[in-house]
Structure formats: C-alpha cells, structure tokens
C-alpha cells in the first residue's frame, strides 16, 4: 500500500488480548483414593476453553512434566536466615538445571480433535497413543500399566472470588478500561489490603454499582492513582468493609482439561523411596513458520494404538513451538510474579527467588496490617502499622527481616486428616512451596494443598493464610490454613460482609469417580462435539 515499511499497516496495533487456549488455569495433583491396583496419582491440568469447552486448539501442545524424589526437609526448621534460604534455592536450582530427567506427557489434538498423547522418559521408555477427546478411556502402556485419561471440556474446578483478590491488590484492569498504551496502569500504587481503605474511591465497593469489577468496568480516570488516607474505612456501625465477597466468580465457567490417573510405579521406579512427585504444566503455541509446514501425524500412530518414540525427537518438535504459560503452584503467577509474561518460567523460577522475597514483603505491608486490625496475629513484621502501607523493596536484604517468619513458618493444617498414615511428615513452609514452582504431591498424604492440590481445596484463602502467625491461637487452637474459612471467625469480627473471603465449595459438585471434575456447563449457541 505504501512505499515505506509499515508492519502495523496490515497487522495489529494493539496486542489482541482475547482469551487464549494457551492460558493455563490450574494444576491439580493428589494421590488417588482408588488403590485397588496399587498406588495411583491424579493429575489434572486445566486451561481456557478456547475455542470451546470440548473443542481443543490444534495449534497448541500441552506438557505435563514430573519427577519423583524422596521427601527431604531443608533447611531445618530452626534456621530462618537469608543465607539458609539462598542455600536452599541454590540446591534446588542445581537439581532442576542439572541432570534432571523429568518424565513428560505431551498432548496435542489434530484438526479432527483426535489427541496424540506422547510419553517421554518414563521407566518403561517413550511411546505415544492417539485417542478420542471428551471420553474417559484407558491407555495401556507397553509395561502393562493402565492409565485412565480424559482430554476435553469440564466445569472449571476453581472456585474463587477473583474480583475480591484483584480489589485487594488494586488491580486496575479488573475495574477499569485501561488503555493498551498504559501498561503501567495495572497494580496501582495504593496499599494492598484486605480491608477497604478510607477514601480509596478508585477501588472501594460502590453499592450503586454492585457489578463493578464483576464484568462492568469504568473508564480509568486521570492520575495520579494514589491514596492519601491514613486509616481503614469503617461504616456507621464501626465495621470494616471486606474487599472480598465470598462469591464464586468462576461459577458457570468451563475449562478444557487433561485429566490423568496414573499408576505411581509407571512414574516412579522406586516408589518406596521416592514419595514426592513434582508436577508442572506448560502450554506452547505453534510458531507461524511451522504452521505452513504441518504434515499429518505419522501413519504409524494412526494405525496402531501406540507407537514407540525416539526421545530425541521431542526437542526437535518443541523447537517448532513457543512457550506461553506455565503452571505449578496456584497464585505463583498472580500473587508472586505480577503476571509478567517474561516470568513464565515454570519449575525453573529460581532467578525469581529474590523477587519472591521482595514481593512477599510488598504484599505483607498490605495484608499484615489488615490482619492485625481484625484482632488476629500476622506472620509479617509491619511495626504495628495501624493501616496498610504501599511499600516496595529494591533489595532482598531490606525485605527479608520483615518477611522472615512468613517465609519460614510451618503452615499448620486444621487437623490430621491430611496425614492418614500418621507418618512423621514435616509441615510445608512457603519458601519450599513456591520455589520451585511445582505441585509437589506427597504420596503419603491426601494431597491436600500444600502437599499437592485437591479439587476441593480453597487455595486462594489458604494462600492468604500464609500471612497469619501460625504460632498464635484462635479458640484455643493454633492458627491453621483453614482458619479463614471458619464462618464463626467472621461472625465475631467487626467486618461486613460476614463471609470467608472465597467460596467454600465449587458451584458444581466434584465426582468421586474419574474424571472427578464436573460435567461442563452448556455453552449457548455452541454444539459441542462430545462423542
């Protein structure tokens, strides 16, 4: 059209931010209750239902990687120093960047929605199968193990007041139309908080606009986007206003998912020794240049139930794709990495370790004073600040003393049900939960978070509980990960609405049978291709 170079002329000026099939939602992992044929582990990777629930995007591959290792405790519980944290990070880094031979399950669909599932580096070797989507089916492995699989649409198993979380961190795009050119207008420089701040008109609940932030957005007013107040907001009855509503923002929503129930011995050659299975997921999108080179899947795969693979071939396949998203721990992205694309590192998130400390301290200055104002004890050292503070750190050295206890305290469980065998298993601590960014399933537990992640875990509220002081007591019992889900706590607190921050259960009941996640909701105007 013109005689000058103008790439934008025929392309997008603004990045298109439509829902993408590459957007990973959650990774669940827990030991199966069905042990009839030996121990099994359930792994479910969920992602955006694009183009539709039950119809997967042929340009994507999804990877689920896993390693098995013994349960270790490091550093000892009494060591709460920056040095011990850094040593821990170094040790884990060496493991994940060194001679780590992760096993991998890789999946992609073809245009006819048949799924190719490739297994790499398992004790039985590498092989692949081609299977139907939206069907519960068995995959018999070369070594006579049987994997149960489901690839397709389901109800979104995540139940969460996401707008509440975004209100707590003053995340503008949830509440405002933020111009594409204003990339800085995301988390606005207002104290993060669990209780509304007096005069924080940019984010405080507006009774006249109950849907604000839940679909309805305002135009972003001109800056400065700051807060000048000095106290939490209280109503005429002296109650604080909770930024959370307890309403499930994911109700009625669908996902696409890869759900697998895998015999532990298929993953783990020494199941008696290696009681931890670390799992993480990745989404990759086909590069444009390779889209035009696409050739049909190897005929061998189409004619035979499974074909043996050369493990060396997997990396050449991966070179045709681009990593987009990773998933290991819930909230590792949103709460700790600020959702930046260049921090999508998955298990290899070691270089974020210093950022993790600084970010946790930044969050602590917001959530810690909120917890104190409610009369509860916090693990974060905020110098008895009467109100949330917006504070960022440029050095780990400055941030660490504030966050030391939050980082190192063992996270108490509400009772012993997580440890059905009554084994001597140490409680997990935040630093080891988030670095590396994997779902570490302890096979001797129920797999409830943080010993894995079960479907029914309210992980958003458990994440907030990291900022509670686990040495303190409520009603004669040590603080624990489920305490903020206790309705009686909120009934007694000077706060409205009187609700736990997030819903206590999913909008649809989970099944006690595979594939466990509930059936998908009907999508208006779309006829799914279920078989």
């Amino acid at each position: 059209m013109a005689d000058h170079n103008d790439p934008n002329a025929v392309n997008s000026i603004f990045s298109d931010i439509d829902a993408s099939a590459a957007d990973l939602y959650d990774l669940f992992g827990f030991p199966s209750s069905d042990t009839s044929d030996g121990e099994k582990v359930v792994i479910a990777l969920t992602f955006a239902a694009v183009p539709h629930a039950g119809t997967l995007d042929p340009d994507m591959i999804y990877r689920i990687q896993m390693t098995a290792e013994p349960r270790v405790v490091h550093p000892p519980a009494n060591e709460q120093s920056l040095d011990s944290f850094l040593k821990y990070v170094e040790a884990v880094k060496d493991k994940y960047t060194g001679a780590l031979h992760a096993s991998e399950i890789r999946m992609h669909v073809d245009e006819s929605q048949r799924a190719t599932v490739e297994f790499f580096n398992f004790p039985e070797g590498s092989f692949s199968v081609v299977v139907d989507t939206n069907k519960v089916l068995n995959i018999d492995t070369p070594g006579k193990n049987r994997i149960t699989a489901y690839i397709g649409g389901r109800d979104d198993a995540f139940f969460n007041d996401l707008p509440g979380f975004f209100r707590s961190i003053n995340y503008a795009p949830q509440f405002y139309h933020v111009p594409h050119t204003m990339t800085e207008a995301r988390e606005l420089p207002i104290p993060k908080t669990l209780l509304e701040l007096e005069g924080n008109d940019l984010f405080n609940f507006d009774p006249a606009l109950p849907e604000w932030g839940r679909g309805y957005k305002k135009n972003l007013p001109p800056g400065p986007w700051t807060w000048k107040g000095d106290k939490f907001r209280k109503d005429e009855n002296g109650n604080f206003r909770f930024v959370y509503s307890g309403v499930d923002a994911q109700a009625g929503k669908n996902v696409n998912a890869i759900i697998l129930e895998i015999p532990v011995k298929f993953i783990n050659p020494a199941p008696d020794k290696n009681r931890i299975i670390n799992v993480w997921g990745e989404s990759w999108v086909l590069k444009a240049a390779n889209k035009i080179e696409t050739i049909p899947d190897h005929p061998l795969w189409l004619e035979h139930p499974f074909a043996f693979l050369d493990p060396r071939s997997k990396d050449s396949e991966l070179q045709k794709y681009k990593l987009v998203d990773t998933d290991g721990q819930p909230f590792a992205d949103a709460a700790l990495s600020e959702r930046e694309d260049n921090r999508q590192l998955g298990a290899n998130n070691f270089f974020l370790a210093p950022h993790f400390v600084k970010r946790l301290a930044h969050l602590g200055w917001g959530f810690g004073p909120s917890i104190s104002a409610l009369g509860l004890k916090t693990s974060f050292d905020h110098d008895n600040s009467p109100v949330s503070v917006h504070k960022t750190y440029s050095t780990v050295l400055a941030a660490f003393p504030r966050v030391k206890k939050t980082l190192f305290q063992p996270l108490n469980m509400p009772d012993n049900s997580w440890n059905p065998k009554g084994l001597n298993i140490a409680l997990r601590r935040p630093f080891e939960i988030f670095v590396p960014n994997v779902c570490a399933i302890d096979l001797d537990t129920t797999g409830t978070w943080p010993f894995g992640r079960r479907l029914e875990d309210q992980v958003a509220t458990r994440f907030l509980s990291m900022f509670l002081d686990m040495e303190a007591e409520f009603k004669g019992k040590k603080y624990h990960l489920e305490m903020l889900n206790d309705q009686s706590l909120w009934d007694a607190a000077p706060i409205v609405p009187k609700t736990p921050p997030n819903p206590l259960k999913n909008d649809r009941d989970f099944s006690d049978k595979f594939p466990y996640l509930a059936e998908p909701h009907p999508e208006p105007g779309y006829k799914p291709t279920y078989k």
Partner: protein
Amino acid sequence: MNGLTDFQIEMRAFELDLEDLRPPAMAHPMSADHVTKYVYRLYQRAALDGNLELFQEVEAELDGAIARLGAAPDLCLLKANLDFKLHRVAETKRDLEMSPGLAETSQGRAISADIVFQEGNYEKAGQLYEALVEKERTWDNLARLAHLRARLGDVAAADQLYVEAEDELTAKEMRSFAWVELQRGLLHSAYGRFPQAHEHYDRANRGYSGYWLVKEHIANLLAAEHKLEQAATIYRNVLQRVPKPEIQQALGDIYRHMGKQREAEECFQKALAVYLQSADRGEVHYYHHLVDFYCDAHRDAEQALKWARQDIELRNNSSTQAAMARALHLAGRHDEARQMIDRALSSGVREPGLFLQAGKIHSAAGGNGMGEHYLKLAAELNPHHSAFHVHHHH
C-alpha cells in the same frame, strides 16, 4: 468456513465483530473502551481490505470519538497510525503529542522512529530501531530494523532479522507471518533472485490464503520475469477485489509492454482519475504514485516535477529524492537530476534499482564516468533487472 480463504474468514470475522461492537460504541454514556475497540476494528478492516476509501470512514469515526472523549491515548495512537499510513508526517507527529506520555510508549516510539526513517535520517532511525529491538524484541520492531538494513544494502542482515521476526510469530498471527514473507520475497526480487522470491510468496500464500496483497506481489514478480499474460491475469483478478489505482497502473504497464495500447490507456486513465480525485480532496497519499505516473505511463515532465516537489516537501528522503531526480531527468534538467540522485545516494541507501537510475541519470549528464559505474553496479547486484520497476511496495 470450508472453502473460504484465510482472508475471507478474517474479513467476515471483522464484519461480524463490527456488527457487535457498533451498538455499544454508539451508546450513551460513551465508553472509551467500546469506542476504541469499534474504531480499531474499522481500521483493521480498512487496512485488510486495501480500499483507501474505507479509511475515510475510519477517520470520520476516529475524529468524532476524539472530539467526544478527548485525546485518549489509544485513540491518538490509532490516529497517528492512520496519518502515518497516509503519508501525513506532520500530522502523525502532532497526534503523538496530543496525549501526554504517548510518544514515550513503546508503540509511540516505534512510530516516531518510522517518522525519522521517512524523513531520511537513516542513521538515527537505525539507532532508534536498535533501541526498540533491545527493549522489546517484537516481530514488528525486528521487521522495522530489517527493512532499514535492506535499504542500506545489508541484505544478509536484513533477511536474518526477518527470520528472527518470523520466529516471534505464532500460528495465531499468520497474516503478520505472510507480510514478513512478502518482505523477504521483495528482498530477493530486488536483487533478481526470482525463484527465491517465488518461494517466499508461496509461503506467504500458504500461511494466509486468498490475500490480495500476496497476489499483487506475485503479479509484480511475474511481470519482472516478463511473464506478462500470467501477471495480467492476476492483476485483473486482484482488481476485482481491490480497485486500487496503483494496481490499475501496473496492469496498464503490462498491456503497454504487450502492445495493447488501447487497454493500457484505459487502465492509465482509470488510475489517474483516482490519483487526481484523491489529491483534489487534499490527500497526499498518491503524490509518489503521481510522480511515477507522469515519468512513466504518461510522460509529462512538468506534472512529474509538480508532484515530486509536493512529495519531497512532506517527506524528504532517498525515495522522494530519487523520484525528483527522475522528474528532472525527464525534463532534461540533467545537472539538477544528477545532483538530486547524488543526494539520494548520499543517504547511504544501496539498492540495485537506485543504482540503475543513478547510472541512467549520470550517463545523460555525461562527463564523469559515474554513469557506467552505477550501471555496472546495478547489473552486478541484479543481473535480471526488468523494465518493470516495482514501485508499489518498496
């Protein structure tokens, strides 16, 4: 969607989107987000369609939106893109200043660098493009730098940068991929490497099927190979979809070389009418084409000089200087033509087409032996130089 090309599928998606976006964009109170999405989709449709008249609708809606909503940064950025696309350099600069901070955003800095390029300051443009790539290694920033390298004669570096640009693109951006493939094809075509150019155009076509822009490039290449019948067939096909005057002129060129003077003249008249109507409306987009037209289709030195002068006032760069040199050459003002082509050459641009033109002009001016030098250089770089100088995209 079976049977539809990628182009048709995307055009249809834009139309459907516009149907959905129009009512909320027109609602009161006005939502900046809805209006921006709507006007942006209008712009995307116009850009993909290729019909310049659609941009008039975009401009009207965009100006209306800015009048009602104020200088919102996204709207100003869109306006800057539109003005730049239509060669309105001064207006583009003004658009970027309308919204505080816009010029400092990554998109704003990219257009600012493009302006510097259009103003012929290739050294500074290079620095700005390199800084952009350093900060954000996006496909379009890499393509900008690649284009500059190509103009400066570093073909290998340019192609490598285009390869890197492609590596940033995913299967969800096939139109952009096709565009980069066209640039790679153009690079080969300019140096007479026609088979390689065909390969890239074929990849572009496979990546994004049914796109008139790809067909137009293929027709240009066939014309350069003197495959006139094939080229004419494709041009006619493209013109049915996109009645662009420069394609009409290109078809006229083909007819003339085939000895079909009447058909050629019909095409030229149609092209000229659109060029002049546009200029009458105060648009500057076709100035460059008018210079070409009066140097080539209807040889008229006075008219060629008039439009060349107006174009160079807007964008004083090696392209507009070379166009002015052609007009001066046609007017028999050989010394001035030589001075002007030397100015174009002093910019650092090294392209076979420019050397060929310099050779002709210097030869006509006579005396210094540079004519032979440039003709030899042009022949070395492109042994297959065609009578068809493809002036529509490069």
